């Protein structure tokens, strides 16, 4: 089905393309969010990546590669955006928006978000992309590797190291 949508979108079918984006965008958005660390920037990156994908879709020779192809466009855009953020400010998280989600303890959720986003600031953009794809987009490691265009073994080792750096930045210690 996805292949048919890609083929149709490549021929200029906007509805088919929108369906592809609807399917893929939520998880890619979470990965992008990890890289740029701001919902506003993540939304702009996703919008730009979507338009870029629409413009370049004719160049996608293998429809089966659509998800990895789109993720790579978005993550590259996010990395580029992060590199040009003049001064990164972690977005203020609205307590109201957290409460609306029915979280059992809004202050706890807020603290977790603040801790994670601050810790991500200490990681480089590549690490943030790896972690975002794995734990934000919930992709299996082979899919992470495909999205970044790196060998599976490299993805595994870099992911392990990035996670260790994130844990350290969050103050997590083994034995706690």
């Amino acid at each position, binding site marked *: 089905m996805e292949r048919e949508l890609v083929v149709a979108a490549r021929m200029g079918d906007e509805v088919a393309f929108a369906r592809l984006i609807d399917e893929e965008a939520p998880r890619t958005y979470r990965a992008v969010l990890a890289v740029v660390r701001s919902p506003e920037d993540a939304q702009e990156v996703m919008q*730009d990546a979507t338009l870029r994908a629409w*413009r370049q879709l004719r160049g996608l020779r293998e429809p089966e590669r659509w998800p990895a192809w789109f993720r790579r466009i978005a993550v590259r855009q996010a990395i580029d955006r992060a590199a040009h953020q003049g001064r990164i400010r972690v977005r203020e998280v609205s307590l109201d928006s957290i409460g609306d989600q029915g979280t059992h303890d809004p202050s706890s959720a807020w603290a977790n978000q603040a801790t994670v986003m601050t810790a991500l600031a200490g990681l480089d953009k590549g690490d943030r992309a790896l972690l975002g794809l794995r734990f934000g987009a919930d992709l299996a490691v082979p899919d992470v590797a495909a999205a970044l265009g790196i060998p599976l073994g490299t993805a595994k080792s870099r992911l392990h190291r990035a996670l260790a750096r994130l844990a350290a930045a969050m103050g997590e210690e083994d034995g*706690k």
Partner: protein
Amino acid sequence: MASDEPGLTASQERAASALGAALHEIAAAEPFHVDRGALAAPAPRRAIRSYLPAALAAALAVVLIASLAVFAAPRLGIGPSAAQSHFDNGQFAFDYPTAWQTLGTEPGGGLPVLGTGSWRLGCEGDPSATGCGEEITDVSGGRIVVTMWINSGAPAACVKADNLGAAPLGDTWIQRYDETSTYVRQPTTRWEIRRPGYDFSMNGNLWIQAVTDNPAELANAAAMVATFHWEAAADYCHSPTAAPTLPGSAGHFDNGQFAFDYPASWRVLAADYPEGMAVQVYAVLGTGSWKSGCSFTDNGGMCSGDTVDVGGGRVVVKIWSLVGGPVPACTGNNQASATFGPNAVAESTYGSAIDWQIRYPGAEFGWTDDVDVAIWADGPAGLAQAQTLIASFRWDPGTVSGAGMCVPADTPAPPTVEPGAS
């Protein structure tokens, strides 16, 4: 998620779990929705979203009452009665309490950090910072730290100027936010001060942030904001000008990068303006009527398809390109759909417009800086005129070849950089 990752330590498991939860929660609170209107437009554009959650906007209304009271009488009882220090950098000016010291300067813009507390930027290896650039602020004992910055980058497209409950102060429009910052983790009030001709949320506006838990110092900061004024106005709220003119001469466009001919009888409908951050429109010309597709609402703005009327055998041509963004991926997309004169083009059809793309020297189709010519035509005569225009298209001598400027499809992700770099 983390639990099925082999070989993770307990701390890595916890970090992975917290990361996944945070990303899912934030994404759920502010989900991404694709701007489908942009897909239908011949020139892709970005949606501009409202940047305040509804709940926060409602809270602003309450905060605004207090703000207005301060703004109404900035010199009458609120703020310091002692002599004021004066800041003026040629761009803007304001007064602030003489008791405040200059604590440092913001990186990049060089704007001062003022106040009575302590402030510095942490860096790697700093036990009190998680990375270079994090602010280390101490306002204990009722002290205050005031920072200011201007977000750089291309200005966004315009949104309605007076949305979201802003307060006018002379010719300066100010929006105030009261929050507990997740960045400095202390009570924080921020003011966004609109540059004349700009709209809120646009790059180029000035932000002032006061960190303090002392109401008297917060009042001093509000009084400082009330004295603020811009010294130089520049209208960055780009929109097609009322009487546009094109570079070159009548019937001949030349902007120093490329040139083309067009019928001298055509009217110039718009000239050289950005649509969002991704598109630059060089010219809109023709015999038909045309109206920009950007519209504005109380909650932001949206750019979608242009409104074009070419009935009666008329024609409208829009010359535009994608600009900026990262180095594109190599696709090997050099397959032209048609050739007009010496120019091979890739043809697309979006809605009622035909779009012919001309490659930048050495580039592939689909890259930024390729030039697109979108045509709305009623009948073959208009199309023929547009084809003649493309046949006359020339890149000016000196235009740098873009050969080799793409990233091979199988190239690994960009190399990582030192921790702490952003």
